[in-house]
């Protein structure tokens, strides 16, 4: 049984998505339980896989029984084992937490919504688990297409346009990735990642390989919204329905960062990325710009959700920069930050979901007096905010520490400065929210007939998962040492020192 975990991880949610679609027409009340069961089993399989990787070794799986490179192979190692656990857990927690708001917003089309939700997660899990460069593209299509659909269901007037914008940019990004893989196929004749990386060393001087690498990278950067290719992200995530934005915002960009790491570490290998071509310092400079611009744009936002989307843009800069520093600390920081940022983003977007559920809006005006109205939600928000700022013992501190250390070791002080600058800006951003929520009282027009001091907290089914995540931020922070020593240290290839 356990040798089939890699494929069960993807196909159980896949089959469940079809069942959800059918039960949407026959008995709507079954949709949610099936979705929960699917993602819970995906979490179980991914946890099982990670422990298998830690205790034994890399897990391989041949689909259709064909040996790679002729057939498609799944390959789970330390790097994607960790990402799989994060993706499936985040998706599961968000699913449970947003049950009420989905019921309210999509009562007519529950089946279709949950079908796309589970398919989106299937796509992300498939991208992460696969060892085949083309299979990755097919799953990327599924994750993107379902993501566009989910986002477009948001605010009536603006979400479809934002989603259309995302469709254009996302399609270009995916096409670039595909084109790069096509180039690699022309020069290597293979689509299997391990096989390509075995053939490539003799071709490191080839211009086709260099172009393939650049095209793939640009495509992946587009999909992860690396500044200046971020333009689609803020609107798409702001106007998406809250259940979809708290799913897509933590996961899509992180999984694309994982794809970048996979291309850099496995397909093209560090020898090529950091030695054969000499571009890594300039990429870190791009990351410096991304971090600074993300921070500055976040300052201009007048809306909580939009502010958070710009923070995502800055965080993507952290991870890209850390990965391209080319040393062990930077790479460790990037991988650790991938995990942490998924959790932090989930935490703050769940808070936004709760606020929207009660206040029907997420502009700064809606936040007035919120600490009195929704004390528990805002308490969790404070933990998430501290983690994004990088205050110990929350997990955000530790990954930032690794990134800073990596920047210092590489002698890239602009990157260090950008990290510190963005942390300071985050302090300003979040304390402004605290100030509005704590000191400003709701205006008459808004408070209306409600008594000012009364608590109108989100339902328990939304608060419990939120607190699970908030506590998780601290727990992951405290166990950083264990995660780094047992998983991430082994995920970084020995070639990187």
């Amino acid at each position, binding site marked *: 049984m356990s040798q*089939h975990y890699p*494929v069960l991880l993807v196909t159980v949610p896949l089959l469940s998505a079809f*069942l959800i679609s059918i039960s949407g027409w026959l008995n709507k009340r079954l949709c949610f339980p099936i979705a929960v069961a699917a993602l819970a089993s995906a979490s179980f399989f991914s946890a099982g896989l990670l422990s298998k990787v830690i205790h034994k070794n890399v897990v391989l799986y041949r689909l259709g029984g064909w040996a790679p490179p002729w057939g498609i192979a799944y390959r789970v190692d330390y790097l994607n084992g960790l990402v799989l656990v994060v993706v499936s857990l985040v998706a599961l927690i968000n699913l449970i937490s947003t049950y009420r708001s989905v019921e309210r917003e999509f009562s007519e089309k529950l089946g279709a919504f949950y079908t796309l939700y589970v*398919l989106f997660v299937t796509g992300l899990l498939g991208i992460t688990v696969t060892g085949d460069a083309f299979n990755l593209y*097919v799953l990327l299509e599924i994750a993107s297409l379902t993501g566009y*659909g989910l986002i*477009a269901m948001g605010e009536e007037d603006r979400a479809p346009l934002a989603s259309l914008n995302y469709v254009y940019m996302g399609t270009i990004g995916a096409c670039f990735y595909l084109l790069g893989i096509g180039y690699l196929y022309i*020069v290597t*004749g293979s689509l299997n990642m391990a096989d390509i990386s075995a053939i490539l060393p003799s071709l490191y001087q080839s211009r*086709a390989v260099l172009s393939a690498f650049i095209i793939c990278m640009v495509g992946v950067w587009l999909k992860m919204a690396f500044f200046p290719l971020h333009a689609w992200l803020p609107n798409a995530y702001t106007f998406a329905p809250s259940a979809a934005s708290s799913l897509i915002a933590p996961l899509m960009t992180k999984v694309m960062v994982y794809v970048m790491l996979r291309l850099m570490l496995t397909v093209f290998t560090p020898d090529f990325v950091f030695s054969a071509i000499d571009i890594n310092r300039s990429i870190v400079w791009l990351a410096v710009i991304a971090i600074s611009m993300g921070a500055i744009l976040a300052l201009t936002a007048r809306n909580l959700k939009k502010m958070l989307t710009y923070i995502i843009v800055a965080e993507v800069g952290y991870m890209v920069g850390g990965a391209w520093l080319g040393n062990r600390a930077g790479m460790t920081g990037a991988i650790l930050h991938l995990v942490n940022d998924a959790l932090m983003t989930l935490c703050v977007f769940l808070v936004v979901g709760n606020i929207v559920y009660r206040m029907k809006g997420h502009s700064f005006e809606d936040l007035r007096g919120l600490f009195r109205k929704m004390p528990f939600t805002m308490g969790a928000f404070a933990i998430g905010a501290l983690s994004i700022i990088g205050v110990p013992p929350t997990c955000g501190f530790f990954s930032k520490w690794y990134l800073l250390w990596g920047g210092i070791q590489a002698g890239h002080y602009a990157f260090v400065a950008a990290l510190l600058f963005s942390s300071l800006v985050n302090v300003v951003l979040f304390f402004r929210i605290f100030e509005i929520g704590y000191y400003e009282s709701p205006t008459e027009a808004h408070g209306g007939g409600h008594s000012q001091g009364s608590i109108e907290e989100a339902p328990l089914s939304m608060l419990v998962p939120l607190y699970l995540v908030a506590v998780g931020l601290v727990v992951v922070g405290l166990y950083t040492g264990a995660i780094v020593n047992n998983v991430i240290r082994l995920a970084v290839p020995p070639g990187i020192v």
Partner: protein
Amino acid sequence: MKAAGLLIVILTGGLLIYATADFPPWAYPQSPASTHVSPRYIEKSIEETAVPNVVTAVLADYRGYDTMFETTVIFAAGVACFLLLRIRVEEGPEEQLFRHSLTGMTIRIKDGRKAPSDLEEFERIDAHWVPQDLIIKTVCRILIPFIQLFALYVIAFGHHSPGGGFQGGVILGASVIVLAMSHDLRSSLQRMGEKVNALLCAAGVLIYAGTGALCLAMGENFLDYGILAPLFRCDPVMARSNGIFMVEIGVGIAVMATMIRIYNNVSSAGRYDEGL
């Protein structure tokens, strides 16, 4: 802005052309693409899968897992289309038009009023109504069964010639769309309702993924059709061929139903009332 766009396009194009310098020459027999993976497909596919068409063997067996997800992409497109476009109309459109078939007169029923009950004489027509064309209607009615027959042939004959589930499914879907265009959306919905169509969408992909899961349940890897031999009462190589046929049927159903679903949603702007 325009200049910047042009510059980016030129740079990208330049990069793509720059890369071609190190490509193997055209039709070079020793190129990696024709020496590394593909020889096995060309030489061994018939003895390993019993499928004469190499493309089908690669598509549905060697890389069948990709194709399963390609079918899922189509399914997801159908679901997304439904999620975005479908509007539930409580009382039907604001006004309905009826044509008295004996006199050719058209009457307009405003919202909430009672529609003529005698549907023998009164025929519901679309707001943008073109006089029924006898030739188009009759030709389509005669043609549709043959289109469907050909679609089934394309699905079944994918093993031997170009064809397969995707192509056959599109043709099958087109036959129903032709009916909707030559008559009206309501007549096509009478033959395949929304619910049946949606269930077929899911059933098609479920057949594909279910075949894979069946292999898993019988103790082999996912989509390893060879293990299905006892079910088909044949040897494992022939079982691969039969397994491929099963998933092709699934693909055909899913593609057909999704084509119709997208057409219905887009042409009626999600109302399922009046089509094109």
